[in-house]
């Protein structure tokens, strides 16, 4: 197997990247300017993920990418310990609900934290890992001083 090697501290030791196509390119390249984007319905204002041809809530044909705050909450997480590639260190997989809408979730990595500090419900903010032509949205804990400001 060939794959990209680790570029982010305590992220996975390998990356298999998504294919960019006309439907998904906006999502996977959104981080180029540091912002996370989802399709949003111009009629009912729901965010839609994964991308769909029409709004699955109201069926309007009015979906366009729109930036969100990048903030979210850890809905669940796991520390992967299985060595899918040789000599891999554990890494954290998280399921993050975005702040704007509680039925939009991303499977992602939680970085810049220790496994023992992870908790369901912790607040996180997006950061991006740039690899080739893809910006992977990862999340890191919102530090308390940031949260207070």
């Amino acid at each position, binding site marked *: *197997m*060939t*794959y*990209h090697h680790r570029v982010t501290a305590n*992220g*996975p*030791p*390998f*990356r*298999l*990247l*998504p*294919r*960019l*196509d006309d439907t*998904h390119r906006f999502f996977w390249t959104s981080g180029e300017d540091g912002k996370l984007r989802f399709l949003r319905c111009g009629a009912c204002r729901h965010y839609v*993920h*994964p991308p769909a041809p029409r709004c699955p809530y109201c069926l309007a044909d009015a979906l366009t990418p729109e930036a969100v705050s990048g903030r979210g909450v850890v*809905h*669940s*997480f*796991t*520390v*992967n*310990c*299985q060595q*899918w*590639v040789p000599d891999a260190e554990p*890494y954290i*997989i998280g*399921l993050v609900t975005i702040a704007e809408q509680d*039925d*939009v*979730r*991303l*499977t*992602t*990595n939680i970085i810049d934290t220790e*496994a023992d500090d992870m908790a*369901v*419900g912790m607040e996180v903010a997006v950061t991006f890992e740039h690899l*080739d*032509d*893809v910006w*992977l949205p*990862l999340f890191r804990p919102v530090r308390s001083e940031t949260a207070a400001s």
Partner: protein
Amino acid sequence: MRADQLLERRAVISGIGQSAVGRRLGRSELDLTVEAALAAIEDAGLTRDDIDGLSTYPGMGMGPGGFAGPSGPDVQDALRLKLNWHDGGGEGPGQIRAVFAACMAVAAGLARHVLVYRTVTESSAQGRGGRQALGSPGMGAITGPGGGPPRMMGFMQWTIPFGAVSAGNWLAQVARRRMHEFGLTREQLAQIALNGRRNASLNPKAIFRDPLTMEDYLGARMISTPLCLFDCDVPCDGSTTVIVSHADYAPDAPRPVAHVNAIGTALRGRPSWDQFDDMTTMAARDAAASMWERTDLTPADVDVAELYDGFSILTMVWLEELGFCGKGESGSFVEGGSRIALDGQIPLNTSGGQLSAGRLHGFGFLHEACLQLRGDGGDRQVAGDPQVAVVANGGGPIAGSMLLTSGPA
């Protein structure tokens, strides 16, 4: 719902068969399938000339090596079957969807005796080439731009780029969420593995038969927290086959048939590993609910439960969603293990399940349920002449369940 609308009740399981089951048997998937098929055909009192329907899950190369089993056409040709109806595929209410399709086919008069099989050679495949799932075409990957590393497409693009490469990673998050919401503990989760191993010790075909203790479980290496090695099923080679016949064949069948009382097929939440509305249940909730909507039987009527344990956490979910205990209460329900033991309130995974008997991928549970209803469970037979069995397959966004009875409804 009127009984005459419950078309699955026009179907019975008239025969069962299973090939050798083991680690790295080194036999082809077609060879194993033919062995199991011939056993099931004979068990049903039929010959291959009587078989006029064929169905499988999934066939046609889906998934990583050793997962799919032989395609329907390969099996048809190996046995020179003359078919009036045939079916196969990986989409639907779990692995058992192939049985559901067969039930509908006999009810509709499209076929009279359907051979339904599920074959895996994952142990041999992984032994030969290691785990090839990452970046393989069967797992949603295509060649990257300019011949570079493979790229992910389809639903795998949402998980694999983040190293969430296995259902173990995805379902570990179900377990973690249940710890958060319901206070589930590892010691409780362990009971699924310990119960399976106790029962497997009585099953001569089981892969793992040595005793497993709580100490062993708690000391095992982690795969994806909070799931450890013993929370994950064991790849094996083997084929399981059943014959689904029209119910009017029942009086002529040489062995006791299992009557299909109700099937559970619903998927009302989003069909997604990470977007499903309730991450503590997922599709088991809908499959179970739709099954109970089609019967007057209740959870209290069930004598034996064969509930999918590809990962232990899935069995916990099924216990709740099928109504053997309340929502969020499966942890305390299994504590100590006595309620789910062979002589308990609801004997569970009597063959050892996939955790100990081998990952026959759903159909092992179906085979075992039929054995138990016939009283052919050997040393692991549930006492008291069980009349009603429930079989559940799958987990995450893929789930199906069925109620089988020893007599007609």
